[in-house]
């Protein structure tokens, strides 16, 4: 592992014990993340991307979950670490921006207090220093009248403002890694770009690494250097963002790309939907999990599971027996 590698994820598998049986939400996922780098994790709902981000942080529920594999964060193993050991990492080394700001802020605690809790408990600041820093953070994430907002309750703030507060909480402990789990799903479209730009800006400004989890390839296109495409808990394609967009080989990646709305499309363009639905994780097919929905599937796809294989470009991997041909004249 090079000095530049901040996070090394190897063969991570997360299973849940459910009343219906054992559910594998993340299955043998591996990837690296360098310092200052941002990686996008993309996939449909239920593809395991949220569980993956929580597993990386070690933030799964205490019971009914088991994780195997290895997550090395700055040299510390997260898988199997005690709650006390993970607490040391949380807030200081790794922080998370949650999906829905309407539910992720404590409704009965003033927003300022929710920010300065990290400063006081984790960084040992005194009350007045923490308050000053919290107001600074509120200003940094673009909240106007930060001094007044410091004493506001979450219910008096809009969704976009709340997500800015959630970001301020995540930034309070100056983490090296920021996990943004669908950070704009709960927000108005007009606010989404603002929040994404804010994340982008603070990531660059503070020199953090970021994992941006989303179902929307449009979100990660310009904001990440590499992509991890997930389907049914497994990585099905990974590579630089440029390669995945221009030279993807896995039919699922193409389906995701086609189902993402583009501004360049003429208006009233019919959005391509991926036929069928994501597989039941309790009862995965033996072969490729995408085969039942795939136009290119052959008999081999339903009987044997493809593993990640290198493509022509360095670092570009895909798991498919019938990869898409590279389009002639496609940009490289």
């Amino acid at each position, binding site marked *: 592992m090079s000095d530049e590698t901040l996070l090394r994820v190897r063969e991570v598998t997360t299973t849940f014990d459910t009343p219906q049986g054992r559910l594998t939400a993340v299955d043998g996922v591996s990837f690296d993340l360098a310092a200052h780098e941002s990686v996008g994790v993309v996939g449909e709902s239920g593809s395991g991307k949220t569980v993956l981000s929580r597993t990386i*942080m070690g*933030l799964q529920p205490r019971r009914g979950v088991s994780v195997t594999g290895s997550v090395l964060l700055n040299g510390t193993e997260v898988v199997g670490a005690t*709650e006390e050991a*993970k*607490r*040391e*990492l*949380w*807030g*200081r080394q790794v*922080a*998370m921006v*949650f*999906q*829905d700001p309407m*539910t*992720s*802020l*404590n*409704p*009965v*605690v003033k927003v300022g207090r929710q920010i300065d*809790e*990290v400063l006081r*408990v*984790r960084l040992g600041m005194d009350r007045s220093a923490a308050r000053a820093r919290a107001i600074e953070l509120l200003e940094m994430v673009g909240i106007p009248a930060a001094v007044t907002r410091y004493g506001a*309750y979450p*219910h008096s703030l809009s969704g976009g403002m709340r997500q800015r507060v*959630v970001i301020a*909480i995540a930034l309070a*402990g100056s983490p090296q890694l920021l996990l943004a789990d669908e950070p704009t799903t709960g927000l108005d479209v007009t606010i989404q770009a603002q929040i994404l730009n804010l994340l982008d800006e603070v990531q660059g400004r503070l020199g953090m690494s970021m994992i941006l989890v989303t179902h929307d390839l449009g979100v990660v296109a310009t904001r990440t250097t590499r992509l991890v495409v997930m389907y049914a808990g497994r990585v099905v394609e990974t590579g630089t963002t440029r390669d995945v967009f221009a030279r993807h080989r896995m039919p699922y990646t193409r389906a995701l790309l086609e189902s993402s709305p583009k501004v360049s499309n003429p208006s009233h363009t019919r959005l391509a939907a991926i036929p069928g639905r994501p597989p039941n994780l309790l009862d995965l097919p033996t072969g490729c999990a995408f085969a039942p929905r795939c136009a290119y599937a052959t008999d081999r796809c339903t009987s044997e599971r493809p593993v990640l294989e290198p493509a022509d470009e360095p670092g570009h991997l895909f798991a498919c027996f019938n990869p898409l041909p590279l389009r002639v004249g496609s940009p490289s």
Partner: protein
Amino acid sequence: MARYLARRLVTLVGIVIIISVGAFYLIHLLPGDPATVILGTGDSPQNRARLYAQLGLNRPIIEQYFVWMKNVLHGNLGISFISQVPVWTTIRAALPIDLEMIVLSQILSFAVAIPLAMSSAKRPDSWLDRFLGAFSFTMLSIPAFILVVVLVLVVAIKLAVPHTGVSSYVPLSQDWVTNLESMALPSIVLAIGSVTVYYRVLRSDLIATLQQEYITLARSKGISQRRILWRHALRPSSVALLGTAGVNIGGLLAGGFIVQYLLDIPGLGYTLVNSIGLSDYLVVQGIVLVVSIGVIVINFVFDFLITLVDPRIARE
């Protein structure tokens, strides 16, 4: 907020009027007659009629009510037919005892119920949680008057702990240490009933709260579980707890009456039961009025506490 308080105040006045009417009629419906208590059974009808006229009991009952109500509104609860002591004097002597019992029992209940509910909610269905659930259910089904008897038997008689038995009450003004000793047993009896209820209400709300995303966010800050429970989970989980506590205090007064009567503690309950036996109408009416206002005010206070605990509620 001001409108909310004003609306509650109007309700309060209405309820007090209804209760005062009810109490007035009920006591007059009960068998017993103050004239018999004062004059004995063998006195002449003439004396009896004279006493009735003197006490105003010969007038129509509606008129009696309005006379009483008019006096009450002027701050005059009347003078007892029997003891000739002003009713307010009697109440003022007894009320602090009830207040002390309630305050002690509630401090005790919250001090026990909150940590127990937390240890259950941390690990639902653990052996501790199951045990506490079964235990609280058992305690819930034992009435206060049985508990008093058992505790007196064990603590005061078998263990012979001083100042804990029947008739061991020492006023607070005399010696506060002995007073606390003598109030311990009745307060514990009342607390046991409250603890079981508070534990159950808070446990289920805490379990629901701990599933919330904001608890996961709090966890992701790297703060201790203790801090998560006390700073993040307790407040949003205590709305139902405070509501229950407010309602519970009314029941606690009634439970307190029985305990006072059994242990010979001269609080309002003890005085009330004695006054009913003596047909001491004015004392009974006075106590019922004070207690009902007290219960409503306590409810009111708890409703107000709820708005402090959850800032979202005050908005409506």
